[in-house]
């Protein structure tokens, strides 16, 4: 077994070729699986992870060229490196493989020494790509990472309709003063884990975390069919998760925490802001300010979730809403038609 146990998929319709490649891979110490044509290979790739594909071209049902095309078109699979192993006639066919995204081409019968070197190089390149992707995901989000992959990085943004959510922990400063900082970090980590689960589960993306506060966007960078509904559904789940978390806290004699959430829906400009060296994905516009103000107003209104009229108008039945009328909100010159989402 190789040190890292990275798994290969061998795709060949010819039994002798399949067995021979399997033997080579086995001797190299990599775990592997076998597929007898392109259709079976794609099914396997979509149901289990592989780190490298050894692909034949001439196959019945679905040939290697089609497999390469489908891999390239699938965001979840296009990073899987492919080494074509074939005895194709004609340079144009080999060029076609490379143009379709194959990392390398090895003529059959495959030379074992060359195969080892090519597999090693391909797996190393994939490892570096995976590391880079994980790093971006850790400091941005999987959605932003995907957006960067698809569209590339460019400062600036585009106008999109989204729902913006702000959330923070009530009386967090007082809570911090009453307990050691280690406990506060632990509390924040649990709080963020719960909030990320609820927000991500509804298709939202957390774009900002400051202390105990967070901003999330529903509808960018990937569009959502019903961003307002998704945001409100996430907020109800967040409140429910905090209630459950509080049961656990009070059972160990720790004070419960309370959160306030503000949601507004409308046009924003979403994109990358900063410099070419250091940038962040964010949304700007009055909708963002309104969501932040509504969140702050939850303290005054003594409600856990406040939403604006635009969000209210996009919600269907099934969510209980309490109209608060036109309210004066700090930081806004005109009154705001605000609504409270009723929570259990």
């Amino acid at each position, binding site marked *: 077994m190789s040190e890292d146990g990275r798994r290969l998929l061998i795709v060949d319709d010819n039994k002798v070729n399949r067995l021979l490649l399997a*033997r080579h891979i086995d001797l190299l110490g990599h775990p592997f699986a076998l597929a007898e044509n392109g259709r079976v290979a794609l099914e396997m790739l979509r149901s289990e992870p592989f780190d490298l594909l050894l692909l034949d071209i*001439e196959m019945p049902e679905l040939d290697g060229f089609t497999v390469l095309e489908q891999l390239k078109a699938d965001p979840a699979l296009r990073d899987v490196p492919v080494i074509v192993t074939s005895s194709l006639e004609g340079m144009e066919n080999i060029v076609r493989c490379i143009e379709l995204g194959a990392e390398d081409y090895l003529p*059959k019968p495959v030379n074992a020494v060359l195969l080892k070197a090519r597999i090693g190089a391909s797996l190393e390149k994939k490892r570096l790509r995976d590391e880079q992707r994980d790093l971006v995901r850790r400091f941005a989000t999987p959605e932003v990472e995907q957006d960067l992959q698809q569209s590339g990085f460019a400062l600036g943004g585009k106008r999109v309709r989204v729902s913006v959510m702000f959330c923070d922990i009530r009386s967090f400063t007082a809570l911090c003063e009453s307990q050691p900082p280690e406990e506060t970090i632990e509390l924040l980590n649990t709080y963020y884990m719960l909030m990320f689960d609820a927000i991500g589960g509804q298709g939202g993306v957390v774009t900002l975390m400051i202390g105990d506060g967070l901003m999330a966007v529903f509808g960018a960078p990937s569009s959502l069919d019903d961003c307002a509904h998704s945001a409100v559904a996430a907020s109800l789940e967040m409140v429910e998760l905090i209630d459950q978390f509080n049961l656990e806290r009070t059972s160990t004699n720790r004070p419960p925490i309370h959160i306030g959430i503000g949601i507004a829906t409308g046009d924003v400009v979403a994109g990358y802001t900063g410099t070419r060296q250091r940038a962040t994905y964010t949304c700007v516009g009055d909708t963002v300010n309104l969501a932040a103000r509504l969140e702050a107003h939850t303290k005054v209104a003594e409600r856990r979730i406040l939403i604006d009229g635009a969000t209210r108008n996009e919600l269907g039945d099934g969510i209980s809403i309490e109209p608060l009328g036109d309210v004066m909100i700090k930081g806004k010159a005109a009154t705001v038609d605000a609504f409270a989402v009723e929570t259990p």
Partner: protein
Amino acid sequence: MSEDPINLSVFADLQAATGPEFAVELANTFLEEAPGMIAELHNARAVGDNERFQRAAHSLKSNANTFGAVALAAHARELEVKGLDDDRLRNDDALSQLETLLAEAAAALKALTNV
């Protein structure tokens, strides 16, 4: 004088790279599979399916190369590249020649592996 049905240097390399026992096992598999490839060539010729014919010839060429069956591989390659001939008799001749080359390669492989 024609060359040996199996290039001994190629076969020795295969044995060295995969182990002697595995090479025997692989040769057995080829001897089991090859008649199916010949049958596929005949079937494809019978229904005039050039793609199937070329794929079967490609498969046989690939395996022949693995064991160093140079003459068999060269003839299979010729069929792969040219495809079905418009002349039925020329197809029959070509397939008959291929079967002879396969029989020679199979006999040599069996002798080498003591099958």
